[in-house]
């Protein structure tokens, strides 16, 4: 009798042990990623939040005293912060739609059925893997007011040369052009795959019914593409809010802050002006804004996908 219970207890214990081992082995797959992201992503975010509410001592290089919302008040009072936010907004509003429209347009062009299609598509990979900082650098050379090839081409066409990096609006245009050059190929590659995956029979049926090209585009192609356009937009948005390298290499925020996107501004405030507390507060503001907007966009994409 006693031996029986002992065996039973052992069985129970071994069963708990197996379940535990099973749970462990399930979570072990998450382990490495969880540890790295916890230490390198979650912890720094908490630390940023802490610094943003503290007075930062440059002697000890640490957050020393909790001062509440003071840093935030400073930042919100700083007109440079607002102008940098505005610059970022202008960049996003122009660059993202331009890249999506151009990307899908070019994808439509190169998807024509011909021998060179694969090659052309592969070649579009090249601008996409040019480091953004290199892209900024080369374009600075191309757009140089005196020696750049762009102004020479503009001159050939009979127009006056443009002062790309001296005029605030043109400098913003230059940033949008460079970013669009760097990222449109990415959209093109996604869009070509999306266009190829569209069901052919619908188009054939529409053609037989006498639908013309334009009405097919508006009433078949675009509605079918809406989910993927939305998804591409989200992926581009996630990249564009981090834009830093191109502005740094091409204009360094100039002239007079006209292209000083928020990431560059925070970087400058932190590592040039050593205003760590204020830049932490700005980083938190940007982080919250990005998270909220990303959440909204993801939610919107889901809804669009469900509807289609």
């Amino acid at each position, binding site marked *: 009798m006693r031996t029986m219970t002992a065996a039973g207890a052992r069985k129970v214990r071994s069963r708990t042990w197996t379940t535990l081992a099973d749970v462990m082995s399930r979570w*072990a797959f998450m382990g490495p990623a969880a540890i790295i*992201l916890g230490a390198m992503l979650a912890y720094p975010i908490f630390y940023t939040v802490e610094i943003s509410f503290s007075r930062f001592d440059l002697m000890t290089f640490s957050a020393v005293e909790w001062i509440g919302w003071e840093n935030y008040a400073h930042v919100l009072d700083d007109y440079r912060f607002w102008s940098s936010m505005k610059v970022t907004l202008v960049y996003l509003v122009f660059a993202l739609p331009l890249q999506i429209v151009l990307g899908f347009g070019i994808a439509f062009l190169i998807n024509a059925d011909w021998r060179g299609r694969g090659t052309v598509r*592969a070649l579009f990979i090249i601008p996409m*893997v040019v480091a953004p*900082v290199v892209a900024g650098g080369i374009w600075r050379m191309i757009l140089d007011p005196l020696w750049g090839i762009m102004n020479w081409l503009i001159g050939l066409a009979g127009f006056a040369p443009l002062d790309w990096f001296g005029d605030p609006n043109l400098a913003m245009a230059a940033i949008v052009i460079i970013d669009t050059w760097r990222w449109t190929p990415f959209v093109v590659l996604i869009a070509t795959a999306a266009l190829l995956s569209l069901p052919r029979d619908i188009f054939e049926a529409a053609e037989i019914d006498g639908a013309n090209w334009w009405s097919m585009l508006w009433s078949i192609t675009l509605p079918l593409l809406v989910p993927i356009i939305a998804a591409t937009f989200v992926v581009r948005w996630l990249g564009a809010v981090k834009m830093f*390298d191109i502005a740094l290499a091409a204009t360094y925020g100039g002239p007079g802050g006209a292209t000083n996107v928020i990431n560059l501004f925070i970087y400058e405030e932190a590592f040039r002006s050593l205003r760590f507390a204020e830049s932490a507060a700005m980083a938190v503001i940007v982080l919250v804004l990005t998270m909220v907007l*990303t959440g909204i966009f993801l939610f919107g994409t889901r809804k669009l996908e469900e509807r289609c």
Partner: protein
Amino acid sequence: MTAAAFDAPLRRRSRLGRKVRIAAGVFACVVFLFPVFWMVLSSFKEQRDIFTVPPTLFFTPTLETYISYMQRADISRRLINTVIVAAGSGLLSIVAGAMAGYALARIKLRGAGTIGVIILLSRGVPPIALAVPMFLVARSLGVTDMHITLILAYCTFLIPYVMWLMRGFFLALPKELEESAMIDGCSRFGAFFKIIVPISMPGLLSTMIFSMILAWEELLFALVLTNRYASTIPVAIAGIAGDTVNGANWGALTAVGTITVIPVVVFALLVQKWLIQGLADGATKG
């Protein structure tokens, strides 16, 4: 007969349309390739051939810029650093990210859905929000200017990317694969490494290569976390482009730019099929 006659103009027009369409597509491609072509071309010019109006297309090519610049700045060391950091973070993030992606796709975990949402949101975290604390912590631990610091920093954006991509990839695999392996006595790890990993090789490799490219190009963390011994190529380029005192040295810019871009382009074109597939999946399976 009448039908054919009726069709003819329409078909001719669409054939013309097709030609215009192809020509426009090729033209767009040429426009997009031109800056890279111009950079590579200029890198073989002498200084006096760079600063000309109209721009010179024909000139005696020279390696002068490469040779002089490779000696002046420690480009070769930066190049080695960039290779180490890109390879290290690519490998680390593919291992950690693929395992976690597999866990999200296939293993019943309590809270997996929440974790998935958090990962997706974490792809939106602007690196600048991490740069300040990383710099301060690295400084107080005395680990600035080290490869491992940069590798771990790059994992913050590479692991979420890999997790998400591989999660979609593993979801598409038939479930029977590891079920039968586990019935045959494989452990969960055994089933993953012996069955799942080998058949997912194309996806894993293309994701890893893309991760390495992302690490290769990264600027912000490299600027903040390194200054001398572990500094990477993008930092050098930012330095050359941002030299406001002497004006940008275009020879150096094009030469170092070419060195940075060519290996990545070769790599990317070698795996272009997988790369395009991976990109398409990354956007659609999100």
